[in-house]
């Protein structure tokens, strides 16, 4: 088996695949890549199944040495990747020769970039998934973020393979946007019209305390006219909950599975990958769409990603 040696891990680097759905009833959150679109595209560039495990880096990337030849791709945000001394481009297949070192630096665009390797990162699966859930220390590589000196195993891959690149029309469709589209949350009607207007007409800043569990938003507080008892219920991915202080939180991939705060809105499926690219201090706005529109946008996005022209030779 071939391997990758972690010379430096970067700020917060974890093994992720497309997550671990199906175990919410025992309190297990889905986890998985914060920007699953970038992971899927990276896997296609190296000839993997879209769900293969890759390496997710956050804000500051890592340095990885390859003792054997490998085929890799870097996708997502631009972390200024280099191979030895040569600059690399995001979004294309790269052949790595044994002894070479791939280095990612500080982000030049958004929050996360992915390193995908032909064969995928091989770790013991927990409930069918390679994804890391940091809070519980389960899944991924020893249930934790990567550290200097870790050695990751690369899985088996079939022999034949062609170099590819992400088509410009896909890259353009995925460019960062500061407007997140949302549908109304289950307690949207708890918030009077004046408070709803605050939420939809102002920008919110992503707080420093944000992570894969949730993104804290700073801006006009969304206060209920009176305290209202709320019974704990299930939380959907991308729910925007409003604790009693009024500052909303977007619940994300490592989220708690249930919670007891009202939810004013929910980020639509087609925009969840954009949430994974938000950095602390980024500004976002929210635009309400109907469930029909949300579904149409998801179908359009999936059609684009599934089209044979999404990845070009």
């Amino acid at each position, binding site marked *: 088996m071939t391997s990758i040696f972690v010379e430096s891990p970067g700020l917060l680097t974890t093994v992720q695949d497309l997550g671990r759905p199906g175990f919410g009833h025992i309190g297990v959150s889905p986890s998985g890549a914060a920007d699953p679109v970038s992971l899927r595209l990276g896997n296609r560039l190296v000839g993997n199944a879209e769900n293969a495990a890759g390496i997710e880096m956050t804000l500051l990337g890592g340095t990885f040495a390859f003792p054997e030849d490998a085929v890799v791709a870097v996708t997502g945000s631009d972390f200024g990747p280099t191979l030895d001394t040569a600059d690399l481009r995001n979004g294309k297949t790269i052949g790595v020769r044994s002894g070479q070192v791939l280095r990612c630096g500080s982000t030049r665009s958004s929050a996360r970039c992915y390193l995908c390797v032909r064969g995928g990162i091989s770790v013991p699966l927990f409930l069918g998934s390679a994804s890391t859930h940091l809070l519980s220390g389960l899944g991924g590589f020893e249930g934790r973020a990567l550290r200097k000196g870790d050695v990751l195993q690369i899985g088996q891959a079939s022999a034949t393979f062609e170099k590819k690149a992400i088509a410009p029309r896909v890259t353009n469709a995925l460019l960062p946007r500061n407007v997140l589209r949302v549908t109304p949350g289950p307690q949207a009607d708890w918030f009077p019209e004046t408070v709803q207007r605050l939420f939809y007409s102002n920008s919110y800043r992503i707080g420093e305390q944000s992570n894969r569990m949730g993104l804290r938003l700073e801006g006009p507080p969304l206060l209920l006219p009176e305290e209202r008892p709320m019974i704990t219920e299930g939380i959907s991915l991308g729910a925007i909950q409003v604790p009693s202080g009024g500052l909303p939180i977007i619940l994300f991939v490592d989220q708690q*599975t249930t919670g007891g705060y009202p939810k004013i809105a*929910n980020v639509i499926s087609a925009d969840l990958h954009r949430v994974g690219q938000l950095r602390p201090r980024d500004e976002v706005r929210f635009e309400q769409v109907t469930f029909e529109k949300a579904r149409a946008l998801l179908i359009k996005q999936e059609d684009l990603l599934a089209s044979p022209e999404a990845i070009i030779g």
Partner: protein
Amino acid sequence: MNTEFCPASDQSLLVRFDRKMSPEAHRQVRALLRLLVLEPIAGVRNLHPAYCSVLIDFDALKFVHADIEALLRHYVSRLDDVRLPEPQEFEIPTCYGGEYGPDLNDVASLHGISPDQAIRVHSSVAYTVYFLGFVPGFAYLGDLPETLRTPRLALPRRTTPAGSIGIADNQTGIYPFATPGGWRVIGRTPLAMFRPDRANMSLHNVGDRVRFVPISPAEFSALREV
């Protein structure tokens, strides 16, 4: 109350049996979970049970809310006929107070009772596992006796040790992992609530019955699983 179906996101639907804790709603939550395990719906991705509701995550490319609601209405109409597994009974050895239960004294004084009385009340009843949520294996237990009902801490702790036993309003629960937490911590168990290397990863299942049994710090050390 009639069952309500409420879209929570473009890929999830909330099924509400009630808006408060009740034995009837709890039975319906258990029965719907059981039925969805016995007869899974292809395209349903995840289930999030709670006190009186179940959130259903589905594949939004396959279903719209009306499709999944129509399927679930059939399931809901059959809940009275679902046979539920016999609940298991558990005893949870618990070291109360001191470093294990930093909030015990405050809770007792808020209610004008001694810490020993608070321990007796907490360990005097069998609690129902209403559901598992928050983090892997966190059992929401109820109902906490009236004399101990206390609101959450104004300022949640940054970390609460694994095994901590907390109370919040009419609930009590056991933290399976060291996580942030706003419940008032009155004790700690040496048992592991969630172990990926165990056949039944989560010690408790929905519907089980749990009693807390007071132990000494020496017994805590002897029983410690981690």
